[in-house]
């Protein structure tokens, strides 16, 4: 008598499993039907664009004459300082984020912020936004280090800060963490982890500014650098959940994509070149169908020394890019413009230029003097006692002597039409350069 009962039980169990399968997949299809459809790009507007420009060199750049004003954003001495990112606040002030600590990747690295008041022309004192401790407390998992903050303005007006956290290994082990603020960065939400990779969620990094899509979702350019090095484009909803991910390149050469949106259908992506095949050029790919497909990646005419770049699309459709326009070094920072969607580029201004100085020539005393002179050009009140030279020498000393580095630029164009550029200044400070639309117009007119 037991056999028929067992058989009946097994059959019942089988149909329970079948019912569970149909119910679960039915729910899955229902979720798919409700998901946010793909959105077109948004023609660049003043509220979402991220422009800038800057200048200064070891010899003589008269900022007053050329309409540029510069200042140091960060002031902590003897720390490694890197990867600044700009965002405009609701009251037209400008906030910048960066990371700083004993050295790159050390556990005491924190995400810092300061605010620039354009009317007063002053930067606020810096303060900490996030650290590995606050991140691991919020994320309920071990975090070894933090880095690369990137700011964004969401469609609902909230301020977002994306940054990378690493639990194991180097930067290739990065994952993205997001925090949001409803009071323009005074207070922040609990951190949220963004899942972007199936392999322990390893190796997705942010660097370049996100942009708002037509439906209010956020496009976030990221890159992967574990086995391959390639660019990707994430699409996040208002809760920082990933809706989609598109691959921009493949192989082992493309990092830190910058998306330059021209209109609803057209965009150009420029990427840092991390490949080994010369010439070392910025990589480019473009879309003509709102990001559904991307052209094969090609080398542009812009030189690149495996260094980050940034850019924005001006109101007249021209593209403005800040980069180290060199195949070898990061000792010069240049502003270039393209009027033909990135096919050709012309130099607008060399913001920093120490390319004529050869490292073996740089002895201790002359290097200190050069740094102090550059610091005074940035901040007229700077003196030797301020410790700029000591801070820079700590970062820029190598077996080949001392060198200069002006890297990781971030550009912003404000609603009022002002431009701001911030960048890493010799890995020891964040430098800010401000310029006006009038100055830019003058430079662009001189180029014709």
């Amino acid at each position: 008598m037991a056999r028929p009962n067992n058989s009946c039980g097994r059959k019942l169990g089988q149909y329970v499993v079948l019912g569970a399968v149909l119910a679960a997949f039915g729910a899955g299809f229902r979720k798919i039907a409700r998901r946010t459809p793909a959105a077109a790009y948004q023609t660049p507007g003043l509220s979402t664009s991220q422009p800038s420009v800057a200048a200064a060199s070891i010899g003589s750049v008269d900022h007053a004459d050329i309409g540029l004003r510069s200042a140091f954003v960060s002031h902590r001495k003897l720390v490694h300082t890197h990867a600044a990112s700009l965002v405009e606040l609701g009251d037209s002030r400008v906030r910048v984020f960066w990371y700083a600590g004993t050295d790159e990747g050390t556990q005491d690295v924190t995400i810092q912020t300061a605010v620039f008041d354009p009317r007063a022309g002053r930067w606020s004192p810096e303060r900490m936004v996030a650290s590995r401790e606050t991140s691991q407390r919020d994320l309920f998992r071990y975090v070894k280090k933090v880095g690369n903050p990137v700011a964004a303005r969401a469609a609902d007006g909230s301020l977002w800060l994306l940054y990378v956290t690493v639990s194991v290994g180097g930067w290739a082990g990065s994952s993205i963490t997001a925090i949001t603020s409803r009071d323009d960065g005074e207070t922040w939400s609990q951190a949220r982890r963004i899942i972007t990779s199936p392999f322990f969620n390893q190796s997705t990094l942010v660097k370049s500014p996100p942009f708002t899509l037509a439906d209010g979702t956020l496009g976030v350019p990221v890159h992967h650098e574990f086995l391959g090095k390639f660019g990707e484009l994430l699409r996040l909803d208002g809760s920082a959940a990933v809706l989609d991910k598109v691959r921009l390149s493949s192989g082992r050469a493309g990092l830190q994509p910058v998306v330059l949106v021209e209109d609803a259908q057209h965009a150009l992506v420029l990427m840092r070149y991390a490949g080994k095949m010369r010439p070392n050029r910025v990589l480019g790919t473009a879309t003509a169908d709102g990001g559904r497909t991307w052209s094969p990646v090609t080398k542009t005419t812009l030189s690149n020394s495996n260094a980050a770049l940034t850019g924005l699309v001006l109101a007249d459709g021209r593209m403005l890019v800040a980069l180290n326009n060199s195949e070898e070094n990061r000792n010069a920072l240049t502003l270039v413009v393209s009027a033909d969607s990135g096919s050709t580029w012309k130099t607008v201004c060399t913001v920093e230029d120490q390319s004529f100085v050869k490292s073996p020539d740089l002895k201790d005393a002359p290097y200190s003097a050069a740094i102090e002179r550059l610091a005074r050009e940035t901040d007229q009140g700077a003196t030797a006692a301020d410790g700029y030279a000591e801070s820079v020498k700590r970062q820029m000393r190598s077996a080949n002597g001392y060198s200069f580095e002006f890297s990781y630029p971030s550009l912003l164009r404000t609603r009022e039409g002002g431009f701001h550029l911030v960048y890493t200044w010799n890995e020891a400070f964040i430098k800010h350069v401000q310029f006006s639309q009038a100055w830019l117009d003058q430079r662009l007119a001189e180029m014709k």
Partner: protein
Amino acid sequence: MTSPVSTDLTGLAGLALALAALPLAIPAVRRLPPFRRALLLATVAAIVLVPFGPLPWAAYVRGVTGDLSITTLVLCGGAILRSIAGRPKADEPPQLWGLTLIAVAALALYPMALGVGRFDPYRLGYGSPWFVGGLLAVALAAWQFRRPEIAGSLALATLAWTLDWYESTNLWDYLLDPLVSFYALGAVTRSGFGRLGRAGRRAPPAARV
């Protein structure tokens, strides 16, 4: 300590379950009476959730592994249930069909998702109807061929994805993780070599030339 959100709780609970199953790999633990074995596993699960410094033990593991797939939890949960039911065996025959499926899926996913070629199969997990339809077909085929554990696992993973059980919005993360993938690849490879070895021993002398 910040209050955990629901996905932190589910993530840590999943890790606690998996860590509790680890002692079953120790022969001495498998020889314990079922009640004491269950008590030991429950103790391990509780201990890994106790804060050590700023975080629970499981959170340190979570920093490395992330959240574990539903497939991993089904395997670990199954091992624990069999253990409590008193049938833990070191040489328990592997669920080869299921493990083969996991191994094949892992080989299809990870190389391309990590950069081999331009196609990214991981993208399908963000809600491709073709991907979910394909999984449904596999689940129905598994049910038809009397593999309810495969059909049930796929259903559970899909349901968990639908309910946003974890932080991830990608269905792949509910189906697979690197740990279960490595385990499946190892088990399938070992089983394949074992069969080859047995076939070789059974072959007639003439065939061994």
